[in-house]
């Protein structure tokens, strides 16, 4: 099922793909709306960009048995009148004249303006994903994620600067290699002092928004009770069971005292070590079957 953010993204790529197809193929809108999933490869030949493939990725997440390539949000056949209305709304959102709104009659400036909406419509999904990665890879705290700004990410030294931390002292965090590329692409669209994460009204996220983002990713994969604190704790546990030394985990989790790391995570290693020993321990020659 598509989340609210992904539904917006789905609709945007659907409208843009239809506009592109109408302008670059000889098919009328009505005929395009009746195209089926099996027509994807044939239609993708008209594209010199990733519009249709990105759209297809979102279309595949729609839970429906209907065959339409460009269906409505609930999988039904999409009608030309509704498409015209939606294009008009998108043009208004892009601060462009809403007429003409027929793909063939639209000016190049109108089309460019629609293409320019891409980042603003994808941003909520990107934010959700990056926040999830910062929590699940970097073991950051919700407040720390919410407070990030573009200037806090340094791609030269591959570090994240945290100004407001639990210890109230600025800290540096090594940037996980898997985050470098997506973050650099995402941040290229932002100004130096821009917050990394903003709400639909443009204000910076707070910890509640981080919790909501995690909840949305979790519900997307059918999980419950996943939250930033549990993700941070899990990173620590995964490292511990992967044999990472205690002082290394303490560094990643930025505990001011190594005893905190030991108190929360050492018992796991103790149990694993004790299990290895007890599994070898045989006081009698014949084991119980």
């Amino acid at each position, binding site marked *: 099922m598509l989340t609210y953010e992904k539904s917006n993204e789905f609709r945007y790529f659907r409208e843009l793909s239809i506009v592109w197809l109408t302008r670059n193929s000889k098919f009328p809108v009505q005929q395009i709306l009746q195209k089926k999933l099996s027509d994807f490869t044939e239609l993708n030949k008209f594209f010199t960009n*990733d519009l249709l493939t*990105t759209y297809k*990725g979102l279309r595949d997440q729609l839970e429906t048995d209907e065959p339409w390539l460009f269906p409505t949000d609930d999988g039904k056949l999409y009608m030309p009148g509704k498409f015209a209305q939606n294009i008009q709304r998108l043009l208004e959102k892009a601060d462009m004249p809403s007429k003409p709104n027929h793909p063939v009659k639209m000016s190049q400036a109108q089309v460019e303006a629609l293409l320019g909406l891409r980042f603003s419509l994808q941003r909520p*999904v*990107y934010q*959700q*994903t*990056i926040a*999830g*990665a910062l929590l*699940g*890879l970097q073991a950051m705290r919700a407040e720390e994620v919410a407070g990030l700004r573009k200037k806090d990410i340094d791609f030269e030294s591959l570090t994240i600067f945290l100004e407001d931390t*639990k*210890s*109230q002292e600025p800290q540096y965090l090594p940037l996980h290699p*898997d*985050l470098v590329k*997506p973050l650099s*692409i*995402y941040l290229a669209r932002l100004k130096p002092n821009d917050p990394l994460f903003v709400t639909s009204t443009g204000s910076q996220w707070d910890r509640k928004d981080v919790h909501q983002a995690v909840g949305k*990713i*979790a519900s*997307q*994969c*059918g*999980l419950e009770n*996943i939250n930033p604190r*549990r*993700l941070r*704790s*899990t990173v*620590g*546990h*995964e490292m511990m069971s992967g044999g990472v030394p205690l002082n290394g985990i303490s560094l990643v989790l930025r505990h*001011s005292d190594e005893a905190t790391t030991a*108190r*929360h*995570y050492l*018992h*796991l290693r103790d149990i694993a070590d004790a299990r290895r020993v007890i599994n070898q321990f045989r006081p009698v020659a014949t084991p119980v079957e």
Partner: protein
Amino acid sequence: MSKSINSEQLKDLLSEFFTYLKGVRAATDATVAAYRHDLDMYLEYLQSKPELASGEFLINERTIRGFVAFLRARGNADSTVQRRLDGVNAFWKFLHLEYDFNAPKSARDCGIRLKNKRNPSANIPRAEYQLFMETVYADLRKIQ
């Protein structure tokens, strides 16, 4: 023994306590601020007790029980009550160590039952964590 402190003495003791927290217990500014707030709440509770003189400070099992009831009546969750008790108990311990007050008691020893949902080892099962991260990675690849 349970001693009573007047408001003048209390002012000096609190100032000494916050210095002790930073100097002896190496507490951060955040901890000191949190404990200060906890003690403010405790003083607010004491002021609501008609049998105590204005500004009189008292700490014992009975007042701790009363404080918990006071916090619960304000709608505080058990986790918040526990947090507030941390600050008050730290001050009680300080009074015990430095001024021969009666020994501090844990909430349980005071007859208080707190449901503590916090569990530092409440990690996500590996299969669920992997599923979550696979979803995140799949979406990270789409950022372009």
